[in-house]
Structures are given as C-alpha cells and as structure tokens.
C-alpha cells in the first residue's frame, strides 16, 4: 500500500473519550478525516464530536465499518487495544501513545505483521496526507499541499521543518512520523519504498536522530538504488553524550553505534544532501526542485 490512508479512509479512534482523544478527534474531523467511530471500553453508546462510541472494536466494526485506527490509549492499555484492532483487521493502526513498553511494541508489531497490517508508531505524531486527511496530532497549519514527502523519527522537529518547507513556497504530499521509540512499526526504508511509488511525491525529507541504525539502513537502501528521488536529510543529536538518553528511549547512542556523525556520513555517501541546520533543509529542497 503506497498511501496508507486517503480522503476516503474510514477511521476509528481508540481511546476517543480521553482528553487527547476528544481534542484530536475534533481537529482531525476539522481537517476532513472521515472518523466513523470511536472506542472506549465501558463508555460505549455515547458520542464524541458526533462520532458514535462503542465498547469494543468488534462492535464498531459491525456498526460503522472502519478501515484504519488511530490510538490515544494510555500506555498500559496500548497493547491490548492494538491487538484488538489487529484482530479486527484495521490497517493501518496509528499508535500515538507515548511510553509503550518495548515488550508490548514487539508483540504488537509481530502480530500485525502476521496479518499484513501496518503499525505506525508508537510514540508518533501520526500521518498526514496533506489536504486530504490526518491520522495524527500534528498542527495542520504548518502544512500546505505540495510535492515533498516527509518521514521522521521526531515530532516537533518535523513541524519545524515542515513549516520551513511551507514557508519556502514548496509544500508537502504526505508526512509520516515513524515514531521515536527504539521499536516502531515502520522504518525509513519502508516509507522510502512507498514514496518511491507515490506519484504525488517528488522529493523527500528524512529527519533522523541518534540511536539505532535506521538512518544507516536508509542510506544503504538509497545507495542500492531502492530510492531514487531527491532526498534531503537532517539528523538531530550531534551534541549527544554516548550512553545518555536524550528525551526519549530511542535517542541514545549505544557504544559507538548510532552517532549523528555516522548517520550523516552514511547518508552523504548515498548522495543525500544532509543539512547541518534544520533551516538548510528547505533551502536545499528549493534548489533541487528548481
């Protein structure tokens, strides 16, 4: 699936009755997302922003026929909620929740894979298909329909870069946050594969950070010719101290693995323009896209 979601995607909101769930349901509806149902166990038969709420995903499935899910469920309940969505066959499942234990993420992702279901997140701002629909919490004001695809491990840093791209007069096609945790459903390569196929995306911005080797693998994928569109990258965390965690569990330099310099070097070798400052990203894109 190249697009993950589009204007027609019927969306379920899990954890719709919580503060975050309610708030972002409103914003997503305002953006045009087709939210057809919500679920909060024990709170069924109500509504939120005009969206019917059910006790179980199975009921929502029978009554409202959702196709995809976005989750605002508290971390301790996230695993069961995700497994429920997986069993119901919802796809993709966007897990906004922060603080999901790694063990739970591993199980969620493994079970989703067996069913061919895409997990976006956890700990992600979500996905926005600019001008069509948003399954996420990103401020929609920073985006404007255009031809730049964004894939990122970060939240606010993505908004920063997107705002600059928009201000530069370009614009975005789709922006996907893969999530800041060490274990997430999508990695850069998965998303690059999609952007390669996506006719609406002309160039791509990759926003990485220290920790793991997702950026290095993306670089290898690009080197091998798997992704051929113009790409600009920004990697956060050059000032990080090895062994110290920066903000979230994903951003940690382990041994001499996953340093910002190593990632930048790998991407540069793959022919990717790597910005030293977030502000350079939009400038480089502008040059590339003429």
């Amino acid at each position, binding site marked *: 699936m190249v697009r993950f979601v589009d204007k027609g995607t019927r969306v379920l909101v899990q954890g719709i009755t919580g503060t975050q769930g309610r708030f972002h349901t409103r914003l997503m509806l305002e953006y045009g997302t087709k939210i057809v149902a919500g679920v909060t166990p024990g709170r069924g038969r109500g509504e939120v922003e005009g969206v019917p709420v059910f006790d179980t995903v199975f009921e929502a499935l029978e009554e409202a026929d959702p196709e995809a899910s976005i989750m605002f469920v508290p971390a301790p309940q996230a695993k069961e909620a995700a497994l429920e969505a997986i069993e119901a066959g919802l796809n993709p499942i966007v897990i906004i929740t922060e603080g999901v234990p790694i063990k739970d993420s591993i199980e969620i992702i493994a079970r989703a894979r067996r069913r061919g279901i895409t997990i976006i997140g956890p700990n992600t701002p979500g996905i926005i298909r600019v001008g069509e629909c948003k399954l996420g*919490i990103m401020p929609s004001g920073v985006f404007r329909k255009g031809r730049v695809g964004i894939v990122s491990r970060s939240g*606010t*840093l993505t908004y*920063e870069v997107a705002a600059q791209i928009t201000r530069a007069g370009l614009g975005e096609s789709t922006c996907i946050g893969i999530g800041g945790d060490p274990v997430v459903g999508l990695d850069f390569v998965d998303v690059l594969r999609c952007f390669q196929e996506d006719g609406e995306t002309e160039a791509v911005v990759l926003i990485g950070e220290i920790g793991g080797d997702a950026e290095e693998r993306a670089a290898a994928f690009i080197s091998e010719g798997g992704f051929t569109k113009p790409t600009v990258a920004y990697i956060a965390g050059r000032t990080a101290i090895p062994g110290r965690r920066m903000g979230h569990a994903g951003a940690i330099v382990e041994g001499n693995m996953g340093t910002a310099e190593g990632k930048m070097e790998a991407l540069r070798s793959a022919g990717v323009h790597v910005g030293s400052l977030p502000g350079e990203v939009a400038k480089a894109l502008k040059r590339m896209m003429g």
Partner: protein
Amino acid sequence: MKLLEYEAKEVFRGFGIPVPRGKVAESVEEAIRVAEMIGGQVVIKAQVPVGGRGKAGGILLAETPEKAGEAAARLLASGVRGIKVRRVLVEERLKIEKELYLGFTVDRRYRTYVILASCEGGVDIEEVASRTPEKIIKQYVDPIEGFRPYHARWVARRLGFSGGLMMKLSEIAMRLYNLGVEADAEILEINPLALVGEDFVAADARLNIDDNALFRHGNLLQSYGGGELEGLSEVEREARRLGLTYVELDGDIGIIGNGAGLTMATLDTVTLYGGRPRNFLDLGGGAPPERVEQAVTFLLNDKRIKVLLVNILGGITRCDEIAKGIVNARLKAGVTKPIVVRLSGTNEEEGIRILREGGMEVMGTMEEAAERSVLLAGGR
C-alpha cells in the same frame, strides 16, 4: 532503570541463574564480616553504575578478611570514574576455567529480542563484535513463538558444548531470556559467564529495565534503582526530583525545547554557532504552561548558565499561555540573566507581545535564536 551489579545478581538468583556467593557491604566492618563468612579468597567490587570498573581500579582481590577490609576501605574512600563508591560487593573468588558472554537485548531492526552468546567472555563484547563478528552467536527470537528450550540448546551447541554442560548452559540461557522478558529488560548481560568446574556462574551482571515498563514492576522499583541516582550530579538529581527530562552538559547556555528531536536540534544548532550548551531539557510534546514555567525556573537557578534559550514549537498549544509562564518564572526567580525565546503555534502574536513586554528577546527561527544566545553568552 539501571540496576547495580549486586541488585542485578539478586534478581538473577530469583530466576535461578547461579551467581557467586557474596553480599553487598556498606562499611569496612561489614565487608570483613562477609569475607569471613565466605572464607578463602574474595573479590571486592565497587558498586557504581558505570562500565569498565576493572580497568578503573574498582575491582580488588583479597586473600584474607583483613585484606578484604583494607580493599573495601580503599574503594569506599575513593570514587570510580568520578562516582563516589557507597557500597562494595564482596564475593567468593571463582576458579574460572573459561569465560563466556551471554546477553539479551532488543534488536531495533528486526523488532524483537536477540540472545547474544560468545566464547569470548570477560572482555568488551562490542570490541569482539567488531573485531571477530564470527565469534558472536545471535539467536533472534520470534516474538510469538518465544525463545524456547531447544533454541537455548542450539545456542549452547553452537558455543561448542555438549552433554551435561550443554544442558546446564542452555538452562541458563533459557532463564536469562525468561528474566529478560518478565522484567522488561532492555539490556541484560552476563559477562563473563564463568565455567567453574562443571558449573556455570554469572560472575558479573548487568540489567537495564525499560523505563516505560516500570509501571508493572512496582517490586523492582521499590527494591532497586537507588544506585542509578549515584551516577547523577546534584543538578541532575534535582531535575529528576522535578520529573524533568534533563541531561547535564558542561557549557553555559541553558536550553529548553519541546520534543526530543527539536531539543537535540537546538543543542546542535547552538553548538554549530560556536556556543556551548549547558544542558538538554525536553519538555515533551504539547507541554502545558506550568511545565514551561517550572523548567525555566529550574534553569534560571543554575549559576553556570549565562543565557537561557527557550525553543517551543507549540503547534496546537496556546502560545500566550506559554509566554505568561516564561515571564512569571523569570519574575519569581528574580534572576536577570538574558532569555532568548523562539515560540511558534496558536496565538503566536499575542505570545510574542507578552514576552517582549516581559523583557525577553524573541526570535523568529531556531537558528536566529541559537545565534543570538551564543552572542549573548560571549560568542565562540
């Protein structure tokens, strides 16, 4: 949460992983008593949350209880890599015939656990991995099938063991995995796993628990983790007490951001402009105004900070409220050091007005804000 060696070994015991006879001691007298109880030669190990203790002089041998006391005294009086030693672990000295490595960790790429094993134990495993990768056995775990006894035997076979030793080693690998999964370990290592006669003993122990999973490990939280604080400076302890996501650095520009990526990028930008960040402080996405106020207050009180840089990408949050928080913090703290703010989001204009009236410098982009902070701090 990082457990100290003696804590990890306690957990090991609970899962049936053999550890040397021994006990933690907080005083010289206690250390002598433990050494007497053990009898014979003992090892005295500083309990500090850092690696490479051996090289740093944190592990001593003693022939007699008296000498054990002396060694303990030496360690308790000193520090290892700058961290004060509050406890030592006094253990029997093992007659080690062979040192193996056994580890459990998370593989980000394959999104699962991996069991690592090597016959090259007792040394830095990352070095082994880069020098002689063929000496590391990796057994990836299918998260749904789990790591099973026959996988454990397969690992033990590939390490070259057979018969009774293979069975014993596989049993330990199995328990290591069970411990790792049940305790939500991020990293779990036995290095070295010592072959002593016909038995394997975990001579060292490392156990880091996924902080996100601590909500279901109340028992571990209650008993352990105190050692983690020992690796922290005063200011880091205070940050932790306040629940702030803070990392201390050695510069003079205080930095607050929201979101790990944005905050790291702010540090990087300041560094790129020649400044030296004093810290990393991430408020998290969508931080409420009170949180901002608290963080600003915290950094204003840090005397090593000359300039404070606040970079908030509010997005959906209301900027006017955040601006009030920053102004309030400064008023209450009564500290006059310069604050450079970059603020963006809903009600941005109103927020900027409030900040300017409050005497803050407000910049339009992260780069400008970073540049200005570096200048105010005295430049490069």
